[in-house]
């Protein structure tokens, strides 16, 4: 059986399982990191926690967006809901991606006022970007800034991995960020295949990206729990 057929015949089961797994993993990571933030009030950890919870919410809306998309007879009747789901998914996952980078660079920005400005600009920027992406039906508007963000995040975590030689957790966190970058490149490819009516390649890349995202969160959860046994 073609992977495309298998996915389209069982998509609701696959996506439900995927959503449940991602929500559980996000909650587990968040519940640990937020305890460290409560203990320390260290802001970069707050943004790391926020990023995880925004990812979880983004995937929650993704499920409903896919539900409307794959039950096409509903698309016309509940168009406003579809727009809301698609917009929420794009906005929340974009902001989550940004907050990972922000958590990595935050300590280098010393002035508190600058953080307020950066946060406001980022929220506005990704809000408008997601809106533009929905209006123009061009998801590249969202994907390209995210790929740029993750290229920066990969280079920062790579430097940290080199600095902390022989440290398993630093290496695995680098892998988490790298998988995020691959994930966004994969989603870009999947979208290109979708708009060029190449359903077979779209389904293949889409499923691979689901597996990769799941793997990314499993590693993220593993390193968080390994490092934070006392919390």
């Amino acid at each position, binding site marked *: 059986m073609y992977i495309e057929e298998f996915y389209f015949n069982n998509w609701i089961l696959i996506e439900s399982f995927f959503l449940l797994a991602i929500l559980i993993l996000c909650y587990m990571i968040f519940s640990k990191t937020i305890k*460290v933030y409560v*203990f*320390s*009030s*260290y802001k*970069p*950890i707050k943004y*790391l926690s926020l990023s995880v919870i925004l990812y979880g919410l983004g995937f929650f809306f993704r499920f409903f967006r896919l539900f409307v998309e794959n039950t096409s007879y509903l698309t016309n009747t509940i168009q406003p809901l579809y727009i809301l789901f698609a917009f929420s998914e794009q906005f929340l996952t974009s902001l989550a991606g940004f907050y990972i980078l922000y*958590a*990595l660079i*935050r*300590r280098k920005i010393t002035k508190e006022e600058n953080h307020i400005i950066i946060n406001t600009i980022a929220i506005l920027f990704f809000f408008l970007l997601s809106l533009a992406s929905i209006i123009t039906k061009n998801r590249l508007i969202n994907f390209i800034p995210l790929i740029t963000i993750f290229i920066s995040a990969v280079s*920062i*975590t790579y*430097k*940290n991995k080199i*600095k*902390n030689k022989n*440290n398993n*957790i*630093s290496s695995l*966190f680098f892998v988490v960020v790298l998988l995020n970058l691959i994930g966004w490149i994969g989603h870009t490819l999947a979208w290109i295949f979708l708009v060029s009516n190449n359903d077979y390649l779209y389904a293949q890349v889409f499923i691979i990206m689901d597996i990769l995202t799941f793997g990314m969160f499993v590693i993220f959860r593993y*390193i968080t729990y390994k*490092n*934070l*046994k*006392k*919390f």
Partner: protein
Amino acid sequence: MAKKRERLDVIFDILIHIRNEKSVLPTRLLHLSNLPHNIFKTYIDELLNKQMVNETKDKNKVFYTINEKGYAFIEKYKEFIEFRQNFGL
């Protein structure tokens, strides 16, 4: 007033000194912690209130000792520092 993270560093230092000395006089701890007296008093009061440190009296002298909660704080603080370094935060 110091920020919370800096405050954590000070609390950690005080607890480490008490742990290393096992039982310590306030004047000795003040000297070791290298803090002005009024600030030191605020911290030690906080540690006593949060029950991380015990105050005992022996021959009219006050001694501080670390307890389970204090040890737990030290362990958590070490993990927090490690987490920051490992994740590059």
